[in-house]
């Protein structure tokens, strides 16, 4: 009944947002929406016996992995909508967002949350595919919401590259369907059935269908060379949306790849595929960090770092040992949270300077202490410094990868040095500049601090607190959850 409640809540909140007049009510409803999704997720986790089939054993399947992803998604949406209240208001004040688009914004985000949730919960891969497609559409709408030319441009890149690639993964699905038809008599795309009978499937066909599916999912989660839409979309979108894009939507693709890998790893195709994944992971990290190094645009920097982390996650999936999977899952959580905090801080800074460019920033720490320090701490967290969670996740993933190839690990380590150098370069240059001594020499008028609206600081502080807590103390419950997932994916 989980799925029904999700659907119901989704529909109701959509309707409420549709009916509501003022911004405050819309925001309130979307917050309610996210909270109730969180609640349902927790409830399902604690009470109902998972894994369980929903709505007939055809289409929906709730296991710990899906609930884990749903919870992450709901949490991020919650933070984003709390943030959005003040943020969207000031967007409208700056005439960047038109009032009559407000409703579209909230409806799209509510629809997005619902579809993402459904995608995570769907057992039938075709169903998952469709929901993933829909998430592309809605999030593209959110990117384009500012309806400035560059936003629409970014939205287009997103739609065409993501959906175009997704069509190939549909071909992959058709492969899979026929393949299963060959061995099971009647074709099926149900993940549960496929994993159960994975050993029967012919590895060659399976590898082929995996590659096709990979194309689409990789495009969704910004893996090289399908990543090209990511930096534009993430940097042009309003920061609240950017946080969701990199915190939630990238996970959708990774989720698909993970599910597929869980099928493939039972066959002889495993070796090939895991090499394939690790190779793409390494490439992605390399391209991402090289793009970061000389980056002069704050949000671009963050976007590329998302890409880099997706590369590492892909690596973790490719390594494919239980421990690696465990830490990869943890990595997903850590990355989503940290990245959200970065985007939120960047949003405040963008309000302050009306620009993301490094040369426009000055007196950051005196004008925006919270955002400034939030960004600094967030960067430390994102480059994998202890005591933040990404550190341990990174450590263990590399530890497992070492078993496959020493040189791979070494390469990744060096690339990560470049990534942190990129962040350091940006921070030192942007944050140390003060309007008293600008390099250019001409007198600059001291900026007035942008009055941060209520609710915009809370998510940043909340996340920083949370990642600190996660970094120093790894809760038992989370450990059990992750172990459950590893078990259910058939790793143990």
């Amino acid at each position, binding site marked *: 009944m989980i799925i029904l409640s999700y659907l119901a809540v989704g529909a109701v909140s959509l309707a409420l947002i549709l009916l509501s007049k003022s911004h405050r009510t819309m925001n309130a409803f979307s917050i309610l929406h996210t909270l109730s999704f969180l609640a349902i997720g927790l409830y399902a986790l604690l009470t109902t016996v998972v894994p369980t089939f929903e709505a007939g054993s055809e289409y929906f399947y709730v296991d710990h992995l899906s609930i884990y992803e749903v919870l992450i998604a709901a949490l991020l949406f919650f933070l984003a909508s709390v943030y959005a209240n003040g943020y969207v208001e000031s967007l409208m004040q700056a*005439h*960047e*967002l*038109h*009032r*009559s*688009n407000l409703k*579209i914004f909230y409806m799209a985000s509510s629809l997005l949350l619902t579809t993402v949730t459904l995608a995570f919960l769907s057992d*039938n891969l*075709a*169903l998952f595919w*469709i929901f993933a*497609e*829909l998430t592309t*559409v809605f999030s*593209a*709408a959110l990117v*384009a919401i*500012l*309806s*400035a*030319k560059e936003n*629409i*441009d970014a*939205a*287009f890149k997103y*739609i*065409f590259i993501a*959906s*175009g690639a997704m*069509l*190939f993964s*549909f*071909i992959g699905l*058709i*492969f899979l*369907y*026929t*393949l299963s*038809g*060959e061995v099971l008599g009647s*074709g099926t795309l149900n993940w549960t059935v496929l994993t159960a009978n994975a050993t029967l499937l*012919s590895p*060659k*066909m399976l590898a*082929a269908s995996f590659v096709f599916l990979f194309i689409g999912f990789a495009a969704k989660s910004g893996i090289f060379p399908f990543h090209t839409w990511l930096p534009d979309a993430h940097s042009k979108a309003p920061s609240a949306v950017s946080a969701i894009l990199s915190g939630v939507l990238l996970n959708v693709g990774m989720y698909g790849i993970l599910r597929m890998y869980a099928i493939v790893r039972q066959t002889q195709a495993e070796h090939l595929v895991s090499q394939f994944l690790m190779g793409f992971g390494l490439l992605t990290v390399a391209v991402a960090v090289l793009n970061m190094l000389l980056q002069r645009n704050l949000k671009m920097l963050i976007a590329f770092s998302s890409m880099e982390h997706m590369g590492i996650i892909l690596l973790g999936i490719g390594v494919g040992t239980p421990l690696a999977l465990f830490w990869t899952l943890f990595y997903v959580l850590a990355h989503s949270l940290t990245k959200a905090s970065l985007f939120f801080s960047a949003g405040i800074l963008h309000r302050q300077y009306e620009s993301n460019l490094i040369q426009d920033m000055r007196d950051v720490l005196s004008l925006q202490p919270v955002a400034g320090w939030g960004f600094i701490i967030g960067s430390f967290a994102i480059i994998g410094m202890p005591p933040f969670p990404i550190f341990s996740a990174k450590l263990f993933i590399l530890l497992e990868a070492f078993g496959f190839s020493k040189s791979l690990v070494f390469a990744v380590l060096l690339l990560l040095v470049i990534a942190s150098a990129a962040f350091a370069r940006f921070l030192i240059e942007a944050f140390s500049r003060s309007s008293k001594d600008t390099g250019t020499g001409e007198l600059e008028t001291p900026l007035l601090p942008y009055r941060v609206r209520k609710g915009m600081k809370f998510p940043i502080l909340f996340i920083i607190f949370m990642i600190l807590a996660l970094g120093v103390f790894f809760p038992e419950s989370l450990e059990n959850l992750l172990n459950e997932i590893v078990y259910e994916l058939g790793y143990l």
Partner: protein
Amino acid sequence: MIFSFLTDPAFLEDIVRILFVFVLITAAFILSTRNIASLLTVYTVQSLLLVLIAVSLYLIEGSQTLLAIAALTLVSKVLLIPIFINLIGEKIKISRDLKFNYMEPTASLVVSIALILLAYVFLSGFFNEVVLGKLFFIGAVIGLSLTLMGMLVIFSRRKMITKVIGYLTMENGVLLFGIFVADLPFIIEILIVIDLMILVLLTTILAIGLDSTREQYHQRLHTLKIWSGRED
């Protein structure tokens, strides 16, 4: 019975083969035309051909799904989407001539032949183990190559509208591939089409924005009453 030939499989297979040729012709046309209005009609024709293929397959195989798919495609791709795009196109005048990059029409034609070969080589690597009729195999090849051609259109044409058409072509290719390789559950087909509709809706609306110059853009969006730009 005078329509008895409709049940004769050999004849029907010939029909399907002919339709394949027509599909390829439409694809070639889409690749080579320099005029938007004709593009849309060609796309409509292509969808119609798919409908016919589906129907004749139904006559050969007789599975209800194919008929349903045919109907669905007829409604969505032959009627709704073209009408909608036309509607938009009339509301705002888009400069008629197309712009190309990376590939001139002739070049793209050559490439598309290479694509068909590639698709053939690729599929032959896999479907020798899956027992698939000759006809079906060719269908799969054409579907796959049609998808790739659609992509070719996307990146070799500047105008957004043409990109949309390219995407639709890709989707047609996938559909063709699906029809011939596997008979997916109907519900999935429906969902795909819904997704397609929404996507086209969004992209076309946005496409206006980019294909028109920046000034006209906002007031155009206002005339559409769907989307409001920022006022500055």
